[in-house]
């Protein structure tokens, strides 16, 4: 099997057994990036020389029997994580030349465990988008194709570059961040596994902020076990993030393949929403049957405020974004456009530095926080957010985990759904509620739809019960036997 087709678990075993070297493994990926990235645009910045140097160190560690969990494993890093000495752009013009002098906690944890970074993956600007079309560095192409149709499809967003890179074999795994679905929805669109941990599980230190009460880092990989391996490194308490939770990190890999006998799986009625495609509804039903066969008890539940999740999100997230992005003022870092006065400099800088979607969200947020409108919009949204969380809390008194679709449709083509912001926002209808409530959730690919595109199902768990997600996710993965690969991939590419 080609080195770019291996899972992280198999590659780690292969490295230890000296079947191939870290240098060979990393080179296979940097070569694949050189061949395919000009088309897919999954990476904004590639670091092949640093990766190969790190691979040499990994080989030395392996030779001495000092391998760590991720030694020699090539990973992509979403370009929202600050990486010491490596340009970090958030896919925005305002940070196009920003080189952080420090490392984010999540990437530092991965480096501690031996991971090799091959580059910084593309995303929607400041993680604001659902199709990876708002990047200042151009859109990402989904490596999957509809049957008999070469149209460029979107990879989902905002972690679209990470999802495309992992799907195409340009990384064995990648970091993502998820604010309203930005790990799970692109994972579903690209046929990979993506896990958004409980809010507070992974440190936000050094991750460029979008909406701080929602942002959470998580792993994206080609198997449930690989996500468990990555999360093991990424998770953990960090004094530098005030919302980081001081709790032990369990052995996530031990949960993979765990028996599901007696597990209660909730099926929320409200996710049978308008706009749910027939093929995804069928995949959902199939998932229910698989979990039943694995020994689960299926329970109908109700999350009555589901339909208000998106509208709540599009008040809370822009409000936090308008506050977080106030720091880009052309003064201390980032690009500056000169003006005759300080205010003129700010206005020119922020007009030139931010793209239309980011400007729109900053303005929405500014409005809902402005005098006279705060109670009507922001306070109201915070109250509805409480009700959304209460729905989950009450459901989790009856069931252990929820099963839903990840997105209402498979990937769509570049250029579709771009006229009306609200239509684009609807892609996140099933992922946003768990984000609002801070619950962990994961997307697992379970099959191909009628047009040959991957379909994902979402599992939502209790706070800090990522293990049940991994256990149920691995049952779905085994039952589905999802071995399909995208049309554009490293294997065989020259």
């Amino acid at each position, binding site marked *: 099997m080609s080195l770019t087709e291996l899972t992280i678990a198999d590659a780690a075993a292969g490295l230890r057994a000296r079947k191939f070297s870290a240098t060979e493994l990393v080179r296979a990926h940097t070569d694949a990036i050189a061949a395919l990235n000009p088309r897919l645009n999954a990476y904004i910045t590639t670091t092949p020389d640093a990766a190969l140097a790190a691979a040499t160190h990994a080989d030395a560690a392996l030779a001495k029997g000092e391998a760590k969990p991720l030694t020699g494993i090539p990973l992509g890093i979403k370009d929202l994580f600050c990486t010491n000495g490596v340009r970090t752009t958030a896919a925005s013009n305002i940070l196009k030349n920003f080189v952080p002098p420090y490392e984010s906690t999540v990437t530092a944890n991965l480096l501690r465990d031996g991971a090799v970074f091959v580059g910084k993956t593309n995303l929607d600007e400041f993680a604001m988008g659902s199709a990876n079309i708002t990047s200042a560095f151009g859109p990402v192409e989904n490596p999957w194709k509809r049957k008999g149709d070469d149209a460029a499809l979107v990879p989902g967003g905002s972690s679209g570059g990470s999802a495309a890179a992992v799907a195409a074999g340009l990384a064995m795994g990648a970091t993502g961040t998820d604010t309203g679905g930005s790990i799970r929805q692109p994972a579903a669109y690209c046929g990979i596994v993506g896990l958004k941990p409980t*809010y507070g599980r992974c440190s936000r230190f050094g991750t460029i902020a979008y909406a701080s*009460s929602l942002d959470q880092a998580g792993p994206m990989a080609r198997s449930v076990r690989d996500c468990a391996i990555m999360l093991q490194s990424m998770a953990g308490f960090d004094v530098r993030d*005030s919302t980081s*939770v001081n709790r032990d990190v369990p052995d996530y890999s031990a949960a993979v393949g765990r028996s599901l006998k007696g597990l209660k799986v909730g099926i929320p009625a409200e996710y049978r929403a308008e706009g749910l495609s027939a093929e995804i509804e069928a995949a959902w039903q199939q998932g229910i049957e698989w979990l039943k066969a694995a020994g689960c008890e299926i329970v109908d539940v109700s999350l009555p405020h589901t339909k208000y999740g998106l509208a709540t999100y599009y008040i809370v997230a822009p409000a936090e974004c308008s506050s977080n992005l106030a720091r880009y003022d052309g003064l201390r870092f980032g690009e500056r456009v000169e003006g005759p006065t300080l205010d003129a400099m700010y206005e020119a800088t922020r007009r030139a530095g931010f793209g239309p979607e980011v400007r729109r969200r*900053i303005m929405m947020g*500014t409005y809902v926080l*402005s005098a006279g409108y705060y109670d009507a919009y922001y306070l109201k949204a915070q109250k509805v957010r409480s009700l959304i969380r209460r729905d989950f809390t009450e459901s989790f008194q009856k069931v252990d985990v929820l099963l839903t679709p990840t997105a209402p449709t498979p990937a769509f083509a570049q250029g579709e759904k771009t006229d009306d912001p609200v239509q684009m926002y609807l892609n996140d209808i099933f992922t946003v509620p768990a984000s609002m409530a801070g619950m962990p959730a994961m997307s697992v690919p379970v099959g191909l739809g009628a047009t040959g595109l991957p379909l994902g199902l979402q599992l939502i768990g209790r706070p800090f019960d990522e293990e049940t997600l991994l256990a149920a996710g691995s049952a779905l993965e085994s039952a589905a036997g999802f071995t399909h690969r995208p049309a554009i991939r490293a294997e065989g590419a020259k």
Partner: protein
Amino acid sequence: MSLDPATVRRIARLARIGIDESDLPALQGELNGILGWVEQLNEVDVEGVTPMVGTGHAALRTRDDVVTDGNCRDAVLSNAPDAVGPFYTVPKVVE
């Protein structure tokens, strides 16, 4: 609630985002579309509901009041768009 052009201009000013007059109609339409859509929250009865300000998993904690970082002026200034010596620069604000 519908935003008029003057309000859109005021929001842009508050957000310190420069806009051209030619941007106004499209921006006004988009913002009104979003605001119209979020009006659905008016259906929800939130009487007596406590606003959620965070997920509440982490308790606020204190730390020792000690210096943990510093002596990195050059690193701090390394990304400044227009640093002069050890200083940030801004356009003149006092005539």
